[in-house]
C-alpha cells in the first residue's frame, strides 16, 4: 500500500504550474504523476517523497486535495509482463479504477500504481503471482 496525493484542478491555464511550484518550494519531490481530465476539470495524482507534507502544504494553499491508498508493484521491464498481470486480475474479476506506470528505477523494473475497488483481493492476487510489492519507504525514496 502506498499513499497517493490527488488534487482537483480546474481546466485553466497555470493551475498545474501552480501546484508543482507550491510542492517545489516546499522541497517535495514528485516520484510519479498522472492526470485524468475531462473537458471541465482534471485530477492530478501524485506519488511524492513526503505525502503527509504534500497534503498539508496543498491544503494550506487552498487546493482540494485527498490522500488515497493505492498499490504499488514492481514488474520486470519486458514485453508482456503488464499484460499477464492484467489478465490474471481479469480472471479474478478485480476491477481496476485506474493505473499508471513509470520507469527509471535502478534495477530496470517498471513501477505500476494501481487503484482497485477491492484492495485486499487485489493484494492476494498479486501475492499468488509472486509479484513484488514495493514498501512505502522505498517507494518514496526511489
Amino acid at each position: 500500500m502506498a499513499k497517493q496525493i490527488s488534487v482537483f484542478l480546474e481546466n485553466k491555464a497555470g493551475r498545474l504550474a501552480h501546484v508543482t511550484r507550491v510542492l517545489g518550494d516546499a522541497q517535495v519531490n514528485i516520484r510519479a504523476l498522472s492526470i485524468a481530465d475531462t473537458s471541465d476539470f482534471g485530477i492530478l495524482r501524485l506519488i511524492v517523497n513526503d505525502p503527509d507534507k504534500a497534503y498539508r502544504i496543498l491544503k494550506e494553499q487552498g487546493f482540494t486535495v485527498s490522500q488515497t491508498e493505492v498499490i504499488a508493484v514492481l514488474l520486470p521491464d519486458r514485453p508482456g509482463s503488464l499484460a499477464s498481470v492484467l489478465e490474471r486480475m481479469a480472471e479474478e474479476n478485480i476491477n481496476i479504477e485506474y493505473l499508471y506506470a513509470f520507469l527509471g528505477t535502478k534495477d530496470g523494473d517498471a513501477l505500476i500504481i494501481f487503484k482497485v475497488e477491492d484492495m485486499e483481493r487485489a493484494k492476494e492476487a498479486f501475492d499468488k503471482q509472486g509479484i513484488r510489492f514495493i514498501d512505502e519507504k522505498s517507494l518514496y525514496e526511489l
Partner: protein
Amino acid sequence: MIWNQAMECMPREELDQLQLSRLKETVSRVYSSVPAYRAKMDEAGIKPQDINTLADLKYLPFLTKQDFRDNYPFGLLAVPMRDVVRIQSSSGTTGKPTVAAYTRNDIENWAEVMARALTGAGATPDSVIQVTWGYGLFTGGLGAHYGAEKIGAAVLPASGGNTRRQIMLMHDYGTTLLGCTPSYALVMYEEFLRSGLNRSEFRFKSGLFGAEPWSENMRKEIESKWEIDAYDVYGMTELIGPGVASECACKNGLHLAEDHFLAEIIDPDSGEVLPYGERGELVITSLTKEALPLVRYRTRDLTRILREPCACGRTHARIEKILGRSDDMLIIRGVNVFPSMVESILLQIPGIEPQYQLVVDRVNNLDRLEVQVEVSEKTFSDEVRRLEELEARITRELDSGLGVSVKVRLVEPRSIARSEGKAKRIIDNR
C-alpha cells in the same frame, strides 16, 4: 427579547393612527421642501391634503432609483445642509453612488431600529457584538455600531476583511453576537476550522445577517455549522441602512419598524397595489425621516407582507424573507431564476458548499446558464467517474428545481470571489 415594548407591541389601531399622522406630515414636508416631489405630485394632480387615510397612499407617485440619480447628490434633501450630521452612500457599482443623509434625529431613529434588530437577535447589555460589515460610507458597519451602543452592548468595530484576525478577535474577546453578511459567516467558519481552535472556547451564540439575500437553507447551514441562531435583517442605503425590518426569535418573517416605515406590495410591472398576501415588489414610505424622506420608494426587492399576529408579541407586520431583488432575477429562456433558489437547491445536496456563481451567456441566440460550484474536501474524489456523477446529480437537481436546464461546472475552492462584503453571484455576459 423586545427592545422597545411600547412601540413594537403598540395596539394595531393606535399604530395605524400614528402611521397616518406621520404619513400626512411627511407628504406635506416633501411637497413644501423638495422641488422634485412637488413636481411629481403636481404632475399626478395630487395635493398633500388629499391624503386622509392610509389607503390614499396609492394615489401618490413612486420614487425610484432613477430619481436618486437625477437629483444626485443632494436634490432630494428636505432640510438645509446645516441640519445634516452624516452622509453615507452606496458603493455605486451601477453608476453614481446613492446618497443617504441624516439629521441628528435620523441617526437616533436608525440606532433605535438597529437596537430592535439586535435585541431580536439576542443582544443585551452583556453582549459582545462583533461588527464585520464594512465601516465607512457603507451603512452596514456604522448602522449596527450605533444600534449596539444604544443597547449598551460592547461593540467590536472590526469592519470587513482579514478573516484570520476576525476569528482571533471572536475567540479572544468572547464575541457573543456577530453582524455580517451571511456568505461571510461561512467564510469565517472555514477560517475557524483552519485555525484549529476549539468551539467550546468561543462564546458565540447568535448572528444578525444581512446586506444580501439568503435562503432558508443557508440559515440552516450557518446555524448547524456554527451552532448558533441566525437572524435576518433588512434595509438599504436609500431607506436608512440596515434595520428597516428584522427577525424575532420566531424566525418567521422580518418585523417592519412600522412606526418608522410604511410598506406596500405592488405589481412590479403595472405598479398596482396587490391584494393582501400576494408577493410583489416592496414599496417603502418613510414616516420619520427628516433629511431624506421617502414617499413610495420602489425597493425592487420581492416579498410579501404578513399581518397575522406573531407569537413574539410584536404587533408590527412582517415581510417574508426577501427572495431576491427584481434586478437580481435572471430570465433564462423565459424562466425566472433567482440566485437564492440555486443556493437553496445546492444546500440540499449533501457535502455541497453554498459557494456558487451563475454565469449567463447567449450561445446561438439561446441563453445558457452555467452554475459554477466549488468542490469541497467532502465531495472530492480522485476518480473522474465519481466527480462526473456529482456533476450529473447537481445538474439534475438544478434542472428540476429551477425548471430550466443548466450547465454545471465544478471549480476549485475559493476560485469564486469570496465576499468580505457582498457575494458576487451573477456574471451576465448577455
